[in-house]
């Protein structure tokens, strides 16, 4: 049988392992990225293959303003995490609010773009292959933005109520990782749909 | 090349003697199937050798190193060997070499089959897969038929291959006649090509090899390899419009005044439907329902009455004809030779 150790159990070296929250969020990001890759591949595959209907060139405009807003929100959420790490809770609330605002502007911009596409140009998901792949890819991204905004708003609420404290900074960091991922996906979508595809 | 042919022929004959089956992939009757056969013999040889060596060593090890004592915790443990870089390297390098060799042999066959030189006198056939039957067009010869494909026999001295250009009208199918060639999928919105060159006169069987719905199992293929004279005669007959036998005028009327004409074509009549098989010469076929039942008046009558009698799930609806009309229209179709 096993022998009992008589010494107190103290490892020789420092035994630190990566944070499980960050590892977990990284895994989730890889899994979500795999889903996005397939929608991007479908978009690229079907470029130029629509049998009818409006083409990207005819109806798409570069969403410069909303893109700047969304990408800036990565900076603001990073600032929020730094603030929380330094126990500057009011500052953290401020940066979180800025993030939510910028993300909200992005969503509003997307909604406006879609309104024009549907009612002015007659492009829906059923219209042709471009419509199918455009709405599904941008829509999937927008869904992830919505989820992110809900979580960020929750974080903002807890930050303002004083419940979000310095010891939670790793959890906020995990959330900010998710938000960086959402922004990263937008960079790809922007390049593929609005630059490459037009 | 000649030696390979001889060897293939001999092996094919030997194997066929053991197992005389109409769809045996080891009984090739055409060039694509033969080149696959040769390659497969090489692959089987290599994999058998690997199996004998590894399984042999495994068997030896199990016998030689079995525990002979009663076992138990007091027993002395054998020397603990943790690994060896040289050994790891050797059994990495040797498999890589085998893989390279096999890969090169394989690539050659891929390219010679898919990029074969096409002779100018090749016959073109367009194949359209349907749920659950095969449509065949001969564009150079103006012939349309269904389910039974006639092609001329080819031989190495005077090759006369048939090039099949294939697509589907609905779901995915696959055209597989094992003794003539490997299978090729038949896919909507995609055109695939393959070629066959049966070396001996005869009937070659196959069937759809990609699940396409309820009656996938009964989407059979019949390829008739005819001598050039027989083939020419068959083409000549197929090009004729439908036989107009006055003794079956009543049955003809039944056909022309029912929904039959919206799905079927009988050339020379008002029936120009394209959804179902062309029936202009249906009486000349050996089988109906895509090869699944013999073509005789009894089966024909049953099928027309309700296709689910013979092929449940076939897309042709029951025609709801009364018994008298059924007899008449059956007699009519039987005359369409």
């Amino acid at each position, binding site marked *: *049988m*096993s*022998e009992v*150790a008589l010494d107190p159990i103290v*490892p020789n070296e420092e035994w630190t392992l990566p944070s499980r929250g960050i*590892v*977990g969020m990284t*895994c989730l990001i*890889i*899994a*979500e*990225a*795999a889903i996005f890759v*397939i929608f991007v591949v*479908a978009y690229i*595959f*079907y470029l130029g*293959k629509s049998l009818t209907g409006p083409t990207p060139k005819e109806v798409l405009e570069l969403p410069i303003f909303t893109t700047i807003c969304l990408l800036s929100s990565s900076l603001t959420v990073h600032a929020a995490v730094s603030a929380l790490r330094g126990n500057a809770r009011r500052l953290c609330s401020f940066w979180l609010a800025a993030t939510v605002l910028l993300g909200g502007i992005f969503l509003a911009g997307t909604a406006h773009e879609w309104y024009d596409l549907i009612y002015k140009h007659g492009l829906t*998901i059923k219209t042709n*292959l471009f419509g199918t*792949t455009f709405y*599904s890819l941008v829509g999937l991204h927008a869904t992830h933005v919505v989820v992110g905004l809900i979580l960020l708003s929750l974080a903002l609420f807890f930050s303002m109520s004083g419940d979000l404290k310095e010891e939670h900074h790793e959890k906020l960091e995990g959330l900010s990782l998710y938000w960086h991922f959402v922004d990263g996906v937008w960079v790809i979508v922007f390049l593929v749909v609005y630059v490459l595809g037009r | 090349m000649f030696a390979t042919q001889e060897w293939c022929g001999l092996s094919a004959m030997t194997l066929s003697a053991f*197992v005389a*089956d109409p769809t*045996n*992939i080891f009984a090739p009757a055409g060039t694509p199937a033969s080149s696959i056969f040769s390659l497969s013999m090489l692959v089987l040889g290599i*994999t058998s050798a690997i*199996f004998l060596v*590894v399984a042999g060593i*495994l068997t030896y*090890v199990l016998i030689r190193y*079995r*525990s002979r004592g009663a*076992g138990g915790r007091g027993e002395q*443990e*054998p*020397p*603990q*060997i*943790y*690994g060896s870089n040289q050994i790891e390297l050797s*059994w990495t390098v040797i*498999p890589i070499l085998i*893989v390279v060799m096999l*890969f090169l042999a*394989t690539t050659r066959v*891929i390219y010679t089959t898919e990029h074969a030189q096409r002779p100018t006198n090749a016959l073109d056939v367009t194949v359209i897969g349907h749920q659950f039957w095969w449509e065949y067009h001969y564009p150079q010869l103006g012939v349309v038929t269904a389910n039974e494909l006639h092609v001329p026999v080819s031989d190495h001295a005077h090759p006369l291959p048939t090039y099949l250009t294939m697509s589907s009208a609905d*779901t*995915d199918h696959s055209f*597989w006649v094992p003794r003539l*060639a490997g*299978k090729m999928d038949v896919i909507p*919105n*995609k055109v695939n*090509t393959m070629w066959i060159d049966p070396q001996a006169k005869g009937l070659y069987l196959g*069937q759809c*090899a990609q*699940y396409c*719905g*309820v009656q996938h199992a009964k989407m059979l293929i019949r390829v008739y390899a005819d001598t050039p004279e027989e083939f020419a005669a068959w083409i000549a007959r197929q090009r004729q419009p439908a036989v107009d036998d006055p003794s079956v005028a009543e049955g003809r009327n039944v056909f022309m005044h029912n929904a039959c004409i919206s799905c079927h074509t009988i050339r020379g009549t008002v029936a120009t439907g394209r959804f179902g098989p062309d029936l202009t010469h249906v009486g000349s076929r050996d089988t109906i329902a895509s090869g699944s039942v013999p073509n005789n008046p009894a089966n024909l009558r049953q099928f027309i009455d309700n296709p689910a009698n013979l092929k449940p799930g076939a897309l042709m609806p029951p025609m709801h004809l009364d018994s008298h009309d059924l007899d008449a229209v059956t007699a009519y179709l039987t005359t369409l030779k």
Partner: protein
Amino acid sequence: MATQIPVTEIQDQKVQSPQRHWLEVLHDWVTTVDHKKIGLMYIGYALIFLVIAGFEALLMRVQLAIPNNHFVSPQVFNGLFTMHGTTMVFFVGMPILFGFGNYLIPLMIGARDMAFPRLNAFSFWISAFGGLLLYFSYVGGSGLYGAGSAPDVGWFAYAPLTARVFSPGHSTDYWTLSLLLTGIGTIGTALNIVATIISMRCPGMKMSRLPLLPWLYLVTSGLTFVAIGPLTAAQIMLLLDRYVGSHFFDTQAGGSAVLWMHFFWIFGHPEVYILVLPAFAFANEIIPVFSRKAIFGYPAMVAASVGIGFISLGVWAHHMFTVGLGPGENTFFTLATMIISVPTGIKIFNWLATLWGGKIHFTVAMMFAIGFLFQFLIAGLTGIMLSVAPFDWQLGNSYFVVAHFHYVLVGAILFMLFSAFYYWYPKMSGRMLSERLGKWHFWLFLIGFHLTFDLMHVPGLLGMPRRIYTYEADRGWMIWNVIISSGAIVQTVATLLFVFNMVWSYFRGPIAGPDPWDAWTLEWSVSSPPPSYNFAEIPVVASRRPLWDLKHPDDPDSDYEMDQPTPHEKQEKSL
């Protein structure tokens, strides 16, 4: 630093705890977040579905025994092969393998639970719900042909057969939704496994000291992240096509049927490696113990497993050799598939080298592991045959392929699962399984397996395609089908014996104690079954085989880092 494992007192927990009301027990299990209980639930759930899917297979084998049989209708048969495949992959294979991982990983790395216990429970319940949803299809909704709405589109649900126009009922939707849900659970569990292994190892357990089972589960989980996404994406696209009128796979609007195939197989091929890598994990633990030797070439085994994981992401179109991709793509995928045989071969050779020079004990667990070795070798070789694209032009979509993948799934994975059961059942239940019954189980199952799956290669060679509810009498396939079907009956009897063994031994089996096999990894240092907290005090380890070090203080593994010769080897060299 020395290995330090505090011994836990052996408690017969059943004797000590008072009789509890069955509702209390039920509540405990339903609300548990304990990885051991969740692992057992996954395993139990999978075993139930194994019986159901096995029954579906039996029905198919009866129908196929003679040509033009009328035992079941074509519609029912098509539903049977779809349900059999879908159930076996998603509701037997995945849960049982993740169940074992759930149970064993924290114990093997010296942790008290998984990284995210509540996520663990959630993942189980959502996967379980997916299975129930799939089977609800038999009773729910209005069936199209009177055979219920059970999916009948094949487990890979090729487009455009799944389009609304060709599958108007809800059978496709049941398939899509139940797998979407289960996919969420799978990602959750894989995430948990990675976070646990990376972040919760006990002190001293560097990655280079991680037992091979967690290593392989790490690779498996990584594959899961990359592979399940494509399936999820394709299924979302299918749902959009069917309900919102999009055109992803709508060939009439210019869509591509081949695109579905690419997306599905980008998932589907790594999926089969997700299924087989845990079997390798079990082999890596069990074969050394019953050879009484450390695994040969630990670093090579890790590298080979990681290599298999990566390469498996690049071979998917070998399922599409007959689709007409063109010689360039066919050639590439032939090469990639052949290359994967190199790391796979390395693993087989390393197992051989582990056996070499050992003292092999033929317990039932080891017998199943040996069966695995022979059978996985054969399965790999028929895989090589299929990787030769022109050979696949004949063999693809035929019973040869069915024989090949059942050889892997049953001959390799299921055999290794049986081995894992005989090996770890004592740890999980506190009792030994009957070796006598186990030997009957082994020999019967071996005979049944070979009757069915060896011979199943032959109809494939004779031109019999798969997924056909019947066949023509003139093809010469009947005799083989009769024997194949009879083998299925033998396997059924053997499996029932195994189930009986598990139930009977739970009540009457000999008490196992903490370490019945004289093994070397941390799970054998705690009682059987382990206490709910696993370890009273977290152990500290100094090598890959902590218990070996404790049992052999004169010759501990910790003296040897990778690739150092042992004193025996040094001695032999100097002679």
